């Protein structure tokens, strides 16, 4: 098996190298780093018998609320507690930096994201999120009763461009070279999605909401979760090649999965849930920053900085008979176990991890998509025939997801050095196979593949690539596969009641900032209720 993967790797690498050779980059080696979650830390405690360790006596740290996990959901839990004036909490984060998928880096050219990199203008129903964006200066006022967003943080025009038939064009859907049927199908698809977007269920809720928990439970819509998006598209005769390619791109971009893997409910949700609430006609736009969603996670972390304990991971936790939770954590810096006694525990981590730490949690039926993100520093900005550089640049001929430009918001010169953040979802085949391939492929091979993909759409960058750093996300995104709405493991996460609460985008089944934030706020408010602490709900 290993041999087989090795051979495939060599083949892919060889192909990539020959492509790069055509583009004149030959056997070029770039400086760069191969990065990823701290696997050693993650697996450090596999040999430990946590139940026995917990039973041994030792000094205990008393805390009101223990938040385990410093990704977006954990940070949002802490932020929400702090908003309520509750400050008796501690947040444990395995890595040295909190942020989870919303992490980033910086070099002399620019800050850049390592993962999630934009936030759609939130819907009216995302009240807690809007509250937070006001606090962080992203909403700067009101105009005509709607939030007025800071123009520097809304993605500047040009937002997207597509490399299609040898030239760049605006938007992500091809505008030329389409048959009459392609155009008719595209129009019919847009109309169908617009109808879903307007639809309301019998329970009075929108058919598709963001956060998803506020969506209608009406079976007319939830029944869509029974099959794959691909099957639904076939059944509706959405068969046009360019249309399917566009929809596939969207699905992989948001869910890291193919149309054949994604539930039709989730697929339609992508197109039908966004009803951004904003003044000045920017409701369909995105908030973006050079460092991506790191901006949001940093702002949250800044507010609760004294509560964050980096390099500590929960090892085991158990509710106690007399109330409260006893938790064991490992301090990776001190290389020592620490015991916490908390009134409540918020598990802000994916379920495939949580199930090892707390009894009664299952990850049955949950699968996760691996991703690779690269940051490519270039001595000049990309160009190309057709429309000029956009924030998001995608090639219709590539099987990867294109790149975003880190300096898009901050610079006015289109020619200077920049950092391009390149994305791919390893969505074909089984996630575990892709994950293994991802982890065994060496840096040089990733760099060759990434450079070849970039130079195929931007031959103008020949000779301009200065470094390629690669981040591997083993479990980047939960995959909303058919049946995820009724998956018992997911519903159990939703139903957990004190003293252990669960806060993670896994519970939404959608790995999106707004979902993680909502789950964090929800868990924080449930914890406050559980502890009889008064608060005014932000939901």
């Amino acid at each position, binding site marked *: 098996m290993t041999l087989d993967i090795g051979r495939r790797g060599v083949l892919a690498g060889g192909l990539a190298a020959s492509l790069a050779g055509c583009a004149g980059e030959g056997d070029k080696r770039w400086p760069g780093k191969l990065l990823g979650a701290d696997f050693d830390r993650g697996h450090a405690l596999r040999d430990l018998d946590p139940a026995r360790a917990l039973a041994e006596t030792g000094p205990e740290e008393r805390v009101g609320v223990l938040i385990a996990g410093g990704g977006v959901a954990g940070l949002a839990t802490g932020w929400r507690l702090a908003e309520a004036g509750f400050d008796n909490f501690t947040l444990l984060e395995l890595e040295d930096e909190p942020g989870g998928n919303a992490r980033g880096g910086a070099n002399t050219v620019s800050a850049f994201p390592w993962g999630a990199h934009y936030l759609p203008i939130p819907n009216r129903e995302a009240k807690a999120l809007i509250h937070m964006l006001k606090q962080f200066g992203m909403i700067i006022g009101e105009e005509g009763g709607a939030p007025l967003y800071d123009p520097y943080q809304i993605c500047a025009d040009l937002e997207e461009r597509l490399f299609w038939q040898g030239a760049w064009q605006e938007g992500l859907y091809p505008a030329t070279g389409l048959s009459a049927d392609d155009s008719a199908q595209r129009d019919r698809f847009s109309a169908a999605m617009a109808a879903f977007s307007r639809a309301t269920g019998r329970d009075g809720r929108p058919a598709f909401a963001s956060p998803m928990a506020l969506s209608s439970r009406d079976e007319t819509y939830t029944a869509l979760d029974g099959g794959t998006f691909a099957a639904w598209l076939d059944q509706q005769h959405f068969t046009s090649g360019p249309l399917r390619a566009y929809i596939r791109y969207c699905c992989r971009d948001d869910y890291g999965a193919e149309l054949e893997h994604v539930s039709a409910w989730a697929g339609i949700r992508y197109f039908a849930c966004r009803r951004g609430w904003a003044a000045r006609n*920017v409701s369909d736009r995105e908030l973006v920053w050079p460092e991506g969603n790191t901006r949001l996670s940093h702002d949250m972390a800044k507010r609760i900085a004294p509560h964050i304990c980096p390099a500590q991971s929960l090892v085991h936790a158990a509710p106690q008979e007399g109330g409260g939770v006893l938790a064991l954590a490992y301090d990776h810096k001190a290389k020592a176990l620490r015991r916490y006694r908390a009134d409540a525990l918020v598990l802000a981590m994916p379920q495939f991890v949580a199930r090892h730490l707390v009894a009664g949690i299952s990850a049955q039926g949950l699968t996760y998509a691996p991703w690779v993100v690269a940051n490519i520093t270039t001595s000049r900005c990309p160009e190309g025939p057709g429309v000029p550089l956009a924030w998001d640049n995608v090639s219709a001929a590539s099987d990867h997801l294109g790149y975003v430009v880190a300096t898009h918001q901050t*610079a*006015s010169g289109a020619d*200077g*050095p920049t950092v391009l953040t390149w994305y791919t979802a390893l969505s074909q085949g089984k996630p575990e196979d892709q994950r293994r391939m991802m982890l065994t492929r060496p840096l040089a091979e990733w760099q060759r593949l990434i450079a070849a993909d970039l130079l195929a759409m931007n031959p103008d960058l020949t000779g301009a690539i200065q470094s390629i750093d690669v981040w591997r996300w083993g479990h980047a995104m939960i995959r909303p596969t058919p049946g995820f709405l009724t998956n018992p493991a997911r519903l159990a996460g939703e139903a957990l009641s004190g003293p252990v609460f669960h806060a993670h985008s896994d519970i939404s089944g959608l790995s999106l900032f707004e979902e993680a934030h909502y789950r964090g706020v929800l868990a924080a408010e449930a914890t406050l209720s559980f502890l009889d602490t008064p608060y005014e709900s932000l939901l």
Partner: protein
Amino acid sequence: MSVFSDDEAPAPASDSPVPAEGWSRTHAAILLLSVLVVATCGLIYELLASTLASYLLGDSVTQFSTVIGTYLFAMGVGSYLSRFVRGDELGTFIRVEVMIAMLGGWSAAGLFLAYPLADDFRLLLYALVLLIGMLVGLEIPLLIRILRGRFAFRELVSNVLTYDYVGALIASLAFPLFLVPHLGMIRTGMVFGLANVAVAIALLLVLREQRRVGGDLLASALVAVSLIVGLCLAERIQRYSEVAYYGEGVIHARSTPYQRIVLTRRGGELRLYLNGNLQFSSRDEYRYHEALVWPVLGRVAAPRHVLILGGGDGLAAREVLKDKSVQHIDLVDLDPEMTRMFRQTAQLVALNRGSLSDPRLSVTNADAFRWVRQARGSYDAVLIDFPDPTEYSLGKLYTESFYREVSRLLAPDGVMVVQSTSPLVAPRSYWTVASTLEASGLAARGYHVYVPSFGEWGYTLAAHDPARLASAAVLPAGLKFLTPAAERLMFDFPPDMARRATPVNRLDNQALVRSFSEEWSHYEG
């Protein structure tokens, strides 16, 4: 390969009547057709050399006259030399064709590429003209000799000269009407080179049953391949050789991380291009810069602190420094190479009168979009002189957000101006600047001026206090263009440039870049 003798062929008697065996009417027809082709090609090379010389050296009457004269003289030399061609006239003709194809075909590309390298470009130019002229001069006498006996002498002279003159007509009409505008000079050369070599190859193919043509065919094929490659690379050669692109003598060209800076000279006129867009011509830049600077400074009682955004050429600064009340100028320009060039190159320093080295001025090389967001201070006058909003990146420097930052830096009594593209060519774009300044909370007032190298050009004044804009400007004496009367006139907009309703240019809509490219593309057709 020798042109003037052919040692291998038995030398026939010099005036032998009918040449080689196996001649048919087809051969004669091909040869007559080749008269038409070679005549057209010959004139094209002559026109290429003349046009190129007047592009590069200026003074078109002199260049056309001397190049054509030299070329005709060289043809005479060629005709004279034809008497020394003995023996295989057809073989010699074919080889002459191949050589003309090579030299003539590559002449335009070669001269463009050689221009910046050659110490004495004239020498090279005339040497090439002489060589091509001589070879072309060989063609007709040789053809007449080859065809003699196929036609009666009376008919022969008539035929050859008729085709010759018809070819000349075709060339002289096609060259200005179609070839230069649509193919460009480099491609034109290549295409006609291919026509020459096609004549050679056609004749060789016809002859291949009667003699060995392998070597000649190979040489022809190589020349043809080189011309086809040249044709494919024409675009690149053109870009690589900026003289071809600008049609003017390039005296300085440099690629920086931000832009391509090219300085050209034609006669006494200096021009600066950034990424191919004209920034100024030394002939009339005083009109542009006086109109940029004095309506602002003339409305501020005693401007002490002045901010210039863009303007790395130091020409706006030159005007500002004439005002003795100015104590300090901050100049922010993206490109260090640009400001270095305009501080150090003698011809440019003469133009901006050393403004960039003045102790009252400090240069910051930064992206103005970032710089204004973190800048502090209060400026009595702000001059914004950015390139036109041709791209989204540049469009950011014309947005409401940007003007809000600038208005924060503008003193309560201060006045600012924005270079705002042509109100005649792009009225919607022009007035978008005013709408956008107003949306940022400032009062705005447009004016325009005629700058010959740009055409009708527009600016927008802005201030916190509308009364500042309404007041009359106090102008210094001794300006070349602006007088109080001329200044007043600039604020009058006839109906074709009159204010119209426009959107506000924001970061998220880039309304200006969109209307700008639309309006200018209509204009450029």
